[in-house]
């Protein structure tokens, strides 16, 4: 393992549900400012790993280190306080509220006891601008009128505004068209460029190789390999995902 300052490190993390070993002795490093792709077949433990890191399922064994210090993630609030934001596939946006309202939902600033719309709108506009989100026509559009990629952008902007240090994205490009996918991948790169650690969980190897700096492969609850994306090609990634090992010939 490269031991340059990691943002998040998992050391021998295990999680068991009755007879099912969801995570077995997982060791994984997430550096800041880099996109780490977590790939693996169905049931490999990707979702379990996300849920552990976001505090929903505290681990049974092992250590979680945040900026080098051991932390206990007993609930989603613990993860949030550290600066871990998870964007699930459903994005958790309210269709009937506009972009600004969604970005500030639950954290609205008040001025003289009432909602401070002006400052919300300015901050939201600035955040979207910083993320180079240019396709939305107006930030007062209801989210219902946005495309899939634009919704993803709003969810990411929401995470950025909460000063997230680690953004975990679950299948961010699933169900998106080509142009929309490109837009989301650009957004992920911009996010990493701002020093945020991004963990992308994806099935789509084309997208993964476009955006990832590092790749980690899960297989039957184990993290079988991790390393710079340049160490992998599509064939080797598929082999790691399906067999959990690497035949000498291909390596």
């Amino acid at each position: 393992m490269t031991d340059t300052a990691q943002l998040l490190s998992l050391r021998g993390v295990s999680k068991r549900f009755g007879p099912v070993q969801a995570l077995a002795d997982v060791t994984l490093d997430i550096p800041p400012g880099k996109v780490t792709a977590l790939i693996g077949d169905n049931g490999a433990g990707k979702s379990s790993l996300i849920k552990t890191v976001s505090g929903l399922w505290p681990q049974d064994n092992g250590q979680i280190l945040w900026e080098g210090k051991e932390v206990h993630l007993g609930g989603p609030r613990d993860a949030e306080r550290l600066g871990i934001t998870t964007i699930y596939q459903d994005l958790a946006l309210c269709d009937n509220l506009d972009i600004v309202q969604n970005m500030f939902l639950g954290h609205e600033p008040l001025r003289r006891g009432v909602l401070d719309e002006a400052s919300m709108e300015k901050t939201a506009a600035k955040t979207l601008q910083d993320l180079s989100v240019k396709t939305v026509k107006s930030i007062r559009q209801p989210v219902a009128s946005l495309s899939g990629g634009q919704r993803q952008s709003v969810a990411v902007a929401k995470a950025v505004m909460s000063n997230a240090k680690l953004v975990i994205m679950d299948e961010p490009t699933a169900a998106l068209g080509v142009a929309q996918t490109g837009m989301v991948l650009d957004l992920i790169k911009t996010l990493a460029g701002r020093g945020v650690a991004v963990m992308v969980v994806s099935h789509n190897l084309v997208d993964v190789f476009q955006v990832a700096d590092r790749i980690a492969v899960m297989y039957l609850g184990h993290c079988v390999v991790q390393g710079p994306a340049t160490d992998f090609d599509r064939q080797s990634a598929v082999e790691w995902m399906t067999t959990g090992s690497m035949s000498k010939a291909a390596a």
Partner: protein
Amino acid sequence: MSATDKPAIQDTPDTALSDEELALVAPEVMAHSVGDYFRAWGARIRNGESGALPVIAGLVAICVFFELERSTFLHANNLVNLFVQATIFILFGAAETFVLLLSEIDLSAGFGAGVGAFTMLELNAAPVNFPWWLAIIGGLVVMMLIGALQGALVAFLGLPSFIVTLGGYLGLTGVMLELASIDKTAVGGVINANGTIANLYNSHISPTADWILAVVCVAGFAAVSLLRHRSRVAQGLTTAPLGVTVIAIVGVTVIAIVLTLIFNSNQGTAITAIRGMPYLVPMTLVVVVIAGLFMNKTRMGRYIYAVGNSPEAARRAGINVKLVIIVGFMLTGLVAGFAGLDYASTQGSMSTDFNGGQSVLFAVAAAVIGGTSLFGGRGKISNALLGGLVVAVVFNGLGLMGVSAAVQDIVTAVVLIIAVTLDALVRRRATTR
């Protein structure tokens, strides 16, 4: 021009918007000019996202029909009656809007209002003899407690509000009968409204005061809109074109003048003239305006919209969803309490004959006809103004025509079904788009 309107996304190519985009977005968001604004409006109507316009059109059509049938319909005398009749439907509709926005329903609001009104009258009468304002507050507190109890059952036990409030409907009917029978002043289940509570209906604001009130309202509205417009433009925020703001101010001015003229005309006889606005009318307007501001300007108001659309998204945003649901039911109770007060004042008494079942149906009708969705998250408190007026016009007009109560109910039911159908159709269009 757009560059100053929307500095946030300056580099957006300023291409014309498609009809579909116009349809989905509030016109003031996208429009750069008055022309754009009306184009956006047109697109929204074609796509079924019409807002208030069809309701207004329907209202005008019904009014024309009744005026043709009975020329007394548009007489000032009858119109004043109609507005007073409408206040109770408006208040009930506004009350029901809170829970409808949460995607819940409160079937107990009618008999709840009965309990609240009985409480007010009994606190105001011997032996308690509270002053009128304390009696009213007492009744409103009872209403909020009823709402809190039902809201807690819905929020904590996850019970469907339909069942919880159906229980409330039956239970509160009993409570109302019990309240009437334990009180010795309530002869035959009837307790009279006295003093200020009765005078809300009986007394009128003087014509001079009417004009002052109208001027204050219009000036206040104009000042707030123009200052808001100027400050938003100065800060470079999304702003409706100035022309639209001016049109809104002109509209409010016209409505205020027409209403004041109607209320200031003689509603009595040539010998004993009655002029002015019954206090119930400004009371209703104040309740609706405060409730509307609460929904637009406070966190809790916004959370009610969020929870109504997606409880899961609200929960993940750190919102206490259970609390929001309980507060929603409490607000429904509170505003329904004003409806109960309105009823007691109009009748001059509370009687166990009070039909809370019908009241709650009109509450839902007023909200839904006004455009509030039964499916949560969509609608406004102010929708109840239009919805309540429609219900009142139907009742008043059919009454003038001498139609039986049975037919009145049937016609109101038809109007309600049409409104709900429109709501469902709009929703289907929105989801299949």
